[in-house]
């Protein structure tokens, strides 16, 4: 069970309020009809599926219903940052400190 920060509600909420919506920052060809089969195929079917840092979209479906971007580590499930649609992640993940590796251990 993840905790996810909604950049619109400005709150960290339980995963069950959210729906996963696939990989983020996939650009739709601006003129689909002009796109080659290869370009269209890449857009349509190919996804990164990385081991580690992944940029993905979530919808706050039981909240404000806004879509936003999340940086999540697919190995540790840490949520490193949430940021609004149409923006770029910050250099220093803003919300990482509240939910991941802060505090000294042992």
């Amino acid at each position, binding site marked *: *069970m*993840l*905790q996810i920060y909604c950049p619109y509600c400005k709150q960290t909420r339980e995963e069950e309020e959210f*729906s996963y*919506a696939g990989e983020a920052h996939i650009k*739709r*060809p601006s*003129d*689909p*009809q002009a*796109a080659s*089969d290869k370009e*269209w195929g890449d*857009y*349509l079917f190919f996804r990164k599926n990385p081991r580690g840092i992944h940029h993905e*979209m979530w*919808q706050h*479906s039981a909240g404000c*219903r*806004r*879509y936003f971007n999340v940086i999540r580590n697919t*190995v*540790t*499930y840490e*949520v490193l940052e949430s940021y609004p*649609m*149409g923006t770029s992640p910050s250099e220093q993940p803003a919300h990482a400190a509240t*939910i991941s590796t802060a*505090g*000294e*251990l*042992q």
Partner: protein
Amino acid sequence: MQINRLASGGRVNHAKPLNFSFNGKRYQGLEGDTLASALLANGVNVVGRSFKYGRPRGIVGHGAEEPNAIVQLGSGAQTIPNLRATQVELYEGLEARSVSGWPSVDYDLMSVMGVFKRMLPPGFYYKTFMRPQKLWMTYEHFIRKAAGLGSAPVEADVDSYDRLNQHCDVLVVGAGPAGLVAAREAARSGARVIIADEQSEFGGSLLGASSHVDQQPAADWLAQIVQELNEFANVQRLPRSTVFGYYDHNFLAIVERRTDHLGISAESGTRQRLHRVRARQVVLATGAIERPLVFAHNDVPGVMLASSVATYVNRYAVLPGNKLLLFTSNDDAYQTAINWHKAGREVVAVVDSRMAPGGDLNQIMADLNIQLYCGHGVIEVVGKKRVKAAVIAPLSVDGSSIIGQTLRLDCDLVACSGGWSPVIHLSSHTGTRPQWSDQVVGFVPGESVQQERSAGAARGTYGLTRCLEEGAAAGAKAALAAGFGDGVVEFTAPGADEASQEPQQPLFLVPHSKPTSRAPSQFVDFQLDVTAAGIELAAREGYESVEHVKRYTALGFGTDQGKLGNINGLAILSKALGQTIAETGTTIFRPSYTPTTFGAIAGRDVQSLFDPERYTSMHRWHEQQGAHWEDVGQWKRPWYFPKPGESMHEAVNRECLAVRNSVGMLDASTLGKIDIQGSDAAEFLNRVYTNGYLKLAAGKCRYGLMLKEDGMVFDDGVTACLAENHYLMFTTTGGAAGVLSWLELWHQTEWPELNVFFTSATDHWATATITGPNARKVLEKVCDDIDLSADAFKFMDWRDGTVADVAARVFRISFTGELTFEVNVPAHHGRHVWEKLYEAGQEFDITPYGTETMHVLRAEKGFIIVGQDTDGSMTPQDLNMGWVVGKNKDFSFIGHRGLNREDCQREDRKQLVGLKTLDPKTVLPEGAQIVVDPSQPLPMAMQGHVTSSYYSAHLGHSIALAVVKGGHKRIGETIHCPLADGRSVPAEIVSSVFYDPQGDRQNV
């Protein structure tokens, strides 16, 4: 007769006997007993039969680690399978039975026949799965019956369970000495603390100890600190509570057993509670489990863990035998022999694998005149249903070989200790890899990846003083990390009376005079009968990865997850592979730590609360009419309305004919409705639908298909233009939520510049569909402000007006092919308007119908149902609906480019057609496969399948929709549907429109 019970002492109430039964026999125990301690008090040796070989098994441990004493409690609705007798608190009237042993634990047919030993060599599962699956089914049935895995209750659970969502600053897992002081330190800082422990009372190892803390008996020190914790208002104490899973982002699940200890039929409230805890910081003080020693016939009842023997003596006043032999590789276990001696029974000998042990306890042993065999090991135990004697032999310095004559010592109890294994299960749940420590001789928690730290024996720290120090420090640090206190420990560990100890000897397999492969069975995993020879065999057969060996041998696969056997098994494997244990690594523990009931996990989400049910405002009316129901998503929709004595078939035929010949009415309130507004609403619709919406005028409706980007149909429905920049979109009942999210996704991610807003309006409106040749006549009686004439109110128009004195929107759209008016009114007026329409329709014998009739009528017209006739791989062209696709739209609508892909142009794509069986009465089953030649050899070349199939009363024959490869060009061809029962049904490919192909009837 509690032959093994001491007259006094322990934490049991000697004045309060409790009656219970085990495997049908009656016994007496004491308040404070577990089922296991009570059985031992009564001298019950055999409590189960082993999984593969059917060998008699006795109680080995005293807690979660117990592999053998697995019982089923009670019967009927409240029975619980697979409980460890060591964790079942005794209560008056308790009834338990072994889950294993057939026909009984005392006479096990399997062991007499020796069947399983031949049938189940190591690798059995693996090899069986490699064979045809049929054989596995045969085995499985046999194994379950014979080996016994407990039986699940077949009746509904009558108890109630609760679920709590909680937050805390510091969660302490385990209330042994380290956990208790950790909780106290954290509590002092003001942090909100939860401390949970699986036992009935706090204290952990101190409950079974005879030691002193701070110059007072351990029990007194314990009472004092528990009292202190009680006084903190910011501490929640959870005894009888197992933290069984550690999940992402410091989310932990705890099951609290509230009434199980009071008896199966407790009527005193919630039986169990699931605490879902989001903890800022966690302290894992889960302790350690003693490791058994592996020698020949080490599974004979009477071979137990040394600490368990001590616990039974000290905590339960039970002496589980008469003549004790202690076998150890460390000093710690000596305490057991001393306790036994002081309790007044004979210690036959202490056998220590080390050459020259010399700790303080050693001296006490000598003072008590206990016989000590150094540099020796028990290589075999004699006895079948109880230990009769132990065979010991001198061992080499490294414990790997026998270097002299064996000696037989008579005894009936062998307490053994191969050191301790930290309980790292919860730490493992977080995803960190356990680390092997040569010093601890065990795996310790890996580097923390969540907000947690381990303390005390859970991280391999032994010795009471050090555990207390570490616990206190962990509590203070956890509080600080959560934002409380200063991290400084206020507490100085009291001097516990600890004896000096010599290093333990790693001893994972005691040698036998014969090589392991030919020695009598040396058990590693008692629950699944995994032997040292079996593990060596796996290594010889080429298995190197510990994960593969686990699956090959079943080591650690039992309900105990190998709590006792894992380390010995890994060590034996490592030796066979010629590598270190660190190199071999360990398998990973996963939740649950101990089995958890479904009841606790389900909580109140059962029966009618399992899933929300959605009712339309006409629901009660349908109920009163005797509707049978169909679940559509969460909606309850009338399926059909049978008259007294009518079968479903008869009712549906009657309903269908009523619509075709006069008039019917359908509750269509469940259709998804999305209100769309904004200056770019039309442009947006134009992009998400295949057809054009820019020219749709107010008062008009249009049917559209929605595609995914790959060109495949994913929803359909009608959209009405309510006014300029204002639309109402109808979606399928099941697709409503998904379509709304889809629209929002495109608006928010691709086209945020469009000014458009979406609001779900599904529940705001109730819809009564009036359909049939007499529909206009019915509506006219209750609506006088809309001109309902064919010329004024055309097909695919909608009008505002008043129906039965209620403001209404009336749509002329049709899913039956007949003249249809869909009357939409605000939901709270739904039943009133429905009843008025029903009343108005009486003279035309208006017939309410359900979803089944709706399906038949639409299939007669060849109208698709998305999700039934489509499966995510159908294009509009496949559905013969190319007419819905706008050819000249400016914007490349969603799915447009996808349709241009080569694959979408293939002529042999599966295409929607109709099927008419040659025998008009035969109704094909939906899902039936279609072939050209039914006599071809298997596997047959599939041509497609049936998607919808009904009997049409109006047409007088069966009808079916199907998808067939290149079907549009195969009209007239005869195909065959081979069925599971051996029949093959011939049918002709026809047009998918069976009725009124010109669509005249809906336009009248």
